[in-house]
């Protein structure tokens, strides 16, 4: 068990390093000249003359060979220093740290909603014997997965803020202000989770061990609770890791729609101003969230399915199957 954990930890660190490397080269070298992109591409390109650009290049270390720059930056990143935001001048880590609580509250609420709603939807679809009801319930997730997040947000505002004025449209007025953004953010996750879990539950009902349980005299409810749910929850758990990462990314859209302060809003404006250090910070942070979530989930697998402990890599093999 300890070997397994150590192995998975090493793997996680490797993925993080690779994510840093990929984002470094994509962001700093794909545009050609990062300094020109950061300072020249902005609104007042004319105000910066070549001499100033050279000065900036030197200050950011872009006059050194690529490989030296990379290790300079990596060394700093290992100490938690992702550089300073170009537009605000504040350090990337403190900017992110400042915005984090808002976004975590939002994402946490959305994740909880997804699990509760998605689980309820899937179980009722699998439990019912009425074909039409099952078909109706099973068509909801694919509808949910087809909705653009920004549009859902705007429609909710239109209905619940402008028409009936139940919830505030913008800003973050405590718990009430959290409701609409959280629901918006939860839609794709709920849909995905319900889809995967329902598919697993319905498929598990055809498994021979269910027939064994029936031949024991077990009721349908007992079969769901004791047999199919646990067997079907494994792929759903995998998908949960995926959803966690997506929540952070979708927060960019949702926070923009609802004009909430947070990580997503910062990301959106960083992309607009080509604030490369800040964007890289967000990307690496996104990878960190994903990796940590999946680490937790991988460690939870053996608790759910005793067969997994034998093959430490099995967990990875399932990840992405639902993507």
């Amino acid at each position, binding site marked *: 068990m300890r070997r397994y954990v150590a192995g998975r930890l090493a793997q996680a660190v*490797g*993925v*993080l390093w*690779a*994510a840093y490397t*990929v*984002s470094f080269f*994509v*962001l700093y070298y*794909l*545009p050609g000249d990062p300094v020109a*992109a950061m300072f020249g*591409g902005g609104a007042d390109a004319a105000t910066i003359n070549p001499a100033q650009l050279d000065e900036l290049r030197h200050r950011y270390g872009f006059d050194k060979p690529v490989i030296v720059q990379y290790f300079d930056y990596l060394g700093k990143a290992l100490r938690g220093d992702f550089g300073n935001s170009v537009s605000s001048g504040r350090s990337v880590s403190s900017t992110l740290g400042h915005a984090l609580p808002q976004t975590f509250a939002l994402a946490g609420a959305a994740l909880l909603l997804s699990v509760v709603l998605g689980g309820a939807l899937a179980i009722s679809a699998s439990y019912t014997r009425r074909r039409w009801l099952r078909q109706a319930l099973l068509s909801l997730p*694919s*509808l949910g*997965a*087809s*909705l*653009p*997040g*920004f*549009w859902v947000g*705007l*429609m909710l*505002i*239109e209905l619940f803020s*402008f028409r009936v004025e139940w919830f505030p449209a913008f800003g973050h007025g405590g718990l009430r202000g959290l409701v609409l953004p959280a629901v918006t953010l939860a839609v794709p996750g709920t849909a995905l989770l319900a889809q995967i879990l329902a598919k697993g539950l319905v498929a598990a009902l055809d498994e*021979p061990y269910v027939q064994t349980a029936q031949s024991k005299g077990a009721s349908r409810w007992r079969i769901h609770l004791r047999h199919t749910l646990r067997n079907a929850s494994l792929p759903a758990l995998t998908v949960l890791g995926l959803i966690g*990462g*997506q929540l*952070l*990314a*979708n927060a*960019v*859209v949702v926070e*923009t*729609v609802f004009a909430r302060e947070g990580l997503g809003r910062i*990301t*959106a404006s*960083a*992309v*607009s101003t*080509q604030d*490369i250090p800040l*964007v*890289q910070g*967000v*990307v690496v942070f*996104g*990878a960190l969230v*994903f*990796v940590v979530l*999946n680490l937790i989930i991988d460690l939870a697998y053996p608790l759910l399915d005793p067969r997994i402990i034998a093959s430490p890599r099995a967990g*990875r093999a399932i*990840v*992405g199957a639902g*993507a």
Partner: protein
Amino acid sequence: MINELAGQTEVTVDRDADADADAQTHAYSHADPVSHTDPVSGQPRRAARVNHAARFFVRRPGLVLSIILVLLVVVAAFWPGGLSARDPLRGHPANSFRGPSRSHWFGTDALGRDEYSRVVHGAQLSLKATLIAVAVAFVVGALIGLVAGCAGRWIESLLMRFVDVLLSIPSLLLSLALVTALGYGTVKVAVAVGIASVAAFARVMRAEVLRVRHATYVEASRSCGGRWLFVLWRHVLPNAIGPVLVLATIDFGAAILAVSSLSYLGYGAPPPAPEWGTLVATGRNYLSNAWWLTALPGLTIVATVLATNRISRALDGEWVRQR
């Protein structure tokens, strides 16, 4: 048991025994022993097939509707004048903010431009971006997967670790990073969206190649003396590409959503050009007084995504049955 319960096997098995017995008794009589036991041959076959197809579609009105809708979108993209005679760019200020009516199906915007005609003309940019995104993901992903699956050893490990890294960065964040590096515009947004879903294609392709590569019929071909490239071309690729094509159709809906999200955030085509995401973003400003400017372009996106998802589900089913 399972086999026996599927009524279809029941029938096949009966024919099995009969046909074999037949073949045995007629062994060398140069007659045509099977044709009279098997009515499915020659001319009647084609009629039966047409009949079968007709029944297939009549039973699935949703699918027919989806196909019609997607065809309409394609027509809108290549020949917008056929669906709307009005100019999407010229407005009549006197006509501003008219709700949906018989003369303006989707109402008019702040400048009095016909929203329906803007949506029709927007199809071109949206569809183009979606096609580019899917093509990039398909070509790059399938190539990575094919090479990884065939080459094995360290090449496979290296490529798949790279794919793991791509997967670990939430796709929207990855797209945003690429947009930061590449800059704005419809094509750049499309490429960014495409690259973000390369990983899924690579994984499916590799998994299929591995599955097919170890299939008995591939080994049978090898043991018949087939060269590796011959076997790859004749057996592995045709049998492995199916699920990847299906994934491409599934990815289509996701790409529409991702492209429209990015253009909603303002990274797509610059303002006067009508693009679906941009239309919703513009409509947001008039949410309180002109709901149709957000609701109807958004609904168009939803309907298109639903339709492509429905079609891809149908294709998926057929692929599965063919195997």
